[in-house]
């Protein structure tokens, strides 16, 4: 599991930074400055992500969207890591004790991601 978790974390961070830098460069090239206007109103990660995916589906890709996606990927990295661990504990190690503990962590995290 170490390899799995280690790679999930690494890929998450790298992907997130790549998206953010890509968005930033795109913005910098078009707007000739690095500062930008962008606010995230009080929301939860689920709605935030859905809104972004909606834009993706509508092909409305913009620098802001890339940056936004980058932040989402970053926030989801620990979440995916816990999810991967749970699946591994259950299906590979058949360790039901830890599947349960991990499920608890996952549910608290999921609850927090739906907070308003």
């Amino acid at each position, binding site marked *: *599991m*170490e*390899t799995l*978790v*280690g*790679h*999930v*974390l*690494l890929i*998450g*961070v790298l992907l*997130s*930074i790549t998206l*953010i*830098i890509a968005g*930033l460069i795109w913005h910098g090239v078009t707007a000739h400055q*690095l*500062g*930008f*206007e*962008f*606010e*995230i*109103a*009080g*929301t*939860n*990660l689920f709605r*935030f992500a859905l809104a972004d995916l909606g834009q993706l589906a509508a092909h409305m890709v913009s620098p802001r969207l890339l*940056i*936004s996606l980058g*932040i989402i990927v*970053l*926030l989801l*990295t*620990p*979440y995916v*890591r*816990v999810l991967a*661990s749970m699946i591994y504990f259950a299906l590979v190690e058949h*360790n039901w*004790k*830890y599947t349960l*503990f*991990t499920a*608890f*962590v996952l549910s*608290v*995290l999921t609850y*927090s*991601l739906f*907070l*308003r």
Partner: protein
Amino acid sequence: MSFELLLLISSVAGFVGAMSGMGGGVVLIPALTLLGVDIKHAIAVSIVSVIATSSGSASAYVRNRITNLKVGMFLEMFTILGALVGAAITLISSSRPLFIAFGAVLLMSWGTLFLRRHQKWQAVERQDAPSHWLELEGSYYDQAAHQTVIYQGTRAYVGGPLMFCAGLVAGLLGIGAGALKVLIHDLVMGLPPKVSTTTSNLIIGVTALSGASVYLASGLIDPRMVVPVILGIVPGAFIGTRLLVRLRNRAVRGFFMVVLIVLGIEMIVRGITGCDGAV
């Protein structure tokens, strides 16, 4: 607060944080607030950056099989609840108590370092039954000592609740609270130092996510700050850790302790006198 300035400050914060083993938040938040950023926004930005630095460094430690994933998962059950509570407290709290709390935690972290400075790890003699049921044992290959170290974690029933408090501090102040967590792993649970540090590193990421969700829900996360901070702190931390392995322990620890005391006192003074940068 310009993009470039934030980028610079975060790089320094990441660098100093990694060199001192404290993580960027400890340096970042005082720096941001000195420059006029409201402390709650600084905390929110910092907690997002903690996710980045934790995930980045934890990935390496986990792949080297030093981190104990079961200990981590077990303790995370407590820290994430603590972080939710801590972040909620910050939301309803006013600024000045946060400054004082921040300074107090820094001074306490200094204290924990001071206490631990001469201790050598002693293997746990008897692991208690609950900890054994929780499978809190493991082994890792220590490259410095060229041997495999086998260990057992114990006193999980104390370690767990204490980690709730560490999580609370992390959520409250937007830091990793690594110093507290490592202390708990070391002294309470008897884990070897490298396992303590690396496992704490892993736990910090999930804990930070928990707290970050609360700040996200309240709109305190400002992408205009998050972007330069993440882009600055991750490379800064990367360089800091590279440099860390080349320096002698005592130099690093001394530097670290000075940083803690200076920042700790500074934050407390600002909290008490009300010079919190708010206009």
